[in-house]
């Protein structure tokens, strides 16, 4: 768990400029900066909770993101991690069903918080397809690694799809039709996180 989060943080850091450039096109050019600030702080805080249960660890991630990232993505990712944490409070081990449930709760949290839906050109356009593929894979009794592989691939497709649509939520929505042709930064960071989880699991095997 600690390893996964650490790798997510590293991935975000490596893509700081990239995410910021994407945000410059249709937002206020701070997405990479904000996310990196948040996950750097997460890395610092992980140490203190590394022996705790998964719920505590995820809650720490959530609260750290919430209080450092700011903007739209801070509360959104914060809420996602917080909701995921609630599924595994007090647990030291996570099973397949937990994963599906965590994912589901996280997405519901983002929807509840941001009042957005699929097709609004947000992180949900990466996360929802990823969740659907992952769930299907697990229901078909595939391994967790297989499930995350399918998930991250679907997220990638989702990111590509955001180029084709106009933003209906967030700062990019002021641009309306002019946002078409640009890839959504939040969807991109979501994809990068899923990819980091998949890479970590695969490596650990």
């Amino acid at each position: 768990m600690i390893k996964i989060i650490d790798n997510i943080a590293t991935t975000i850091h490596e893509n700081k400029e990239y995410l910021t450039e994407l945000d410059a096109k249709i937002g206020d050019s701070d997405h990479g900066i904000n996310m990196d600030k948040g996950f750097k702080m997460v890395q610092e805080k992980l140490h203190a909770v590394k022996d705790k249960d998964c719920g505590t660890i995820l809650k720490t991630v959530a609260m750290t993101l919430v209080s450092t990232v700011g903007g739209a993505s801070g509360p959104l990712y914060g809420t996602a991690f917080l909701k995921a944490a609630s599924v595994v409070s007090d647990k030291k081990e996570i099973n397949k069903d937990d994963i599906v449930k965590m994912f589901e709760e996280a997405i519901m949290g983002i929807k509840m918080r941001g009042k957005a839906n699929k097709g609004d050109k947000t992180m949900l356009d990466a996360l929802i397809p990823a969740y659907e593929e992952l769930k299907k894979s697990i229901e078909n009794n595939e391994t967790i690694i297989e499930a995350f592989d399918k998930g991250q691939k679907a997220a990638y497709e989702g990111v590509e799809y955001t180029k084709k649509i106009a933003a209906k939520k967030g700062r990019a929505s002021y641009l309306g039709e002019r946002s078409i042709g640009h890839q959504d930064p939040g969807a991109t960071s979501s994809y990068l996180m899923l990819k980091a989880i998949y890479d970590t699991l695969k490596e650990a095997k």
Partner: protein
Amino acid sequence: MKKIINNPESVVEEMLEGIVNAHPEYVKRLEGFNVLVRADAPVKGKVALVSGGGSGHEPSHGGYVGKGMLDAAVAGEVFTSPTPDQVFEAIKAVDGGSGVLLVIKNYTGDVMNFEMAAEMAEMEGIKVDSVIVNDDVAVENSTYTTGRRGIAGTVFVHKIAGAAADKGLELKEVKRIAEKVINNVRTMGMSLTPCTVPAAGKPSFELAEDEMEVGLGIHGEPGTHRDKIKTADEITEHLLEKIFNDIEVNEKDEVAVMVNGLGGTPLMELYIVNRKVKDILQEKGIKVYKTFVGNFMTSLEMAGCSVSILKLDDELKELLSAKADTIAFKQFEE
């Protein structure tokens, strides 16, 4: 970038220190947080009002902390929403047992960060509710988008909801009144120059010597269009036309007017705009109950102005006229 600052990274911190130094009789700072609260907070039994948002809009919102307006203002980095933990601290510090109303400007980041704070507070048993100000008619309103932005009209919400809370009304009532203000206020702005976020170091956009940007947000977001500079009268006509396309104000209706400077425009020009506002309203037979002219909701050093029109009824009139004693908005009872 020409600014009287020390370090772009520390402008908010140093500004807050400067405010507390200047006005200890009005505000104190929550140690460790970018939060200004009333010097006498919490006020027992009174509904508390909390607002805030990115910095760079001074005197919004710290300047409106005091009797008859806000109980706390939360300051984010320049043009960046504050995080929920900051807002949460503000809520805890000012709750006087009768609940807290959050006054949020409609930006995705602000809305979500404030709402998270509200949830945190509710988990601790504090009664919290919120209203979202969206007075900017430059942006089209639709339930399928983020909707209109919150700009200078927010100050009317602070004033009137603040007066309602000061009168001892309960949270539900204060919220009802705040929403009445929001439903009845519209704002439209324009600018002659961009502004420079200190940390960015360069202007948010460029405008030619003979150009103006119409309908822009208070963070230098692009406006509805760019145009050759017109006369003050023509500009004012356009701003009011957009407002009256969005809200019906009829003959004999009474309104409050706010001619707001964006930070770099001299009062002289704001008064020249107000002269025309009055003329147009008079022609339409609309009665001006009260007029406010000055820098209320700024965008750093941007040159430009916005005009807000608030439609009044007897309840709003009474509350608008009530006493207020804050750093930047003082009013004697009539």
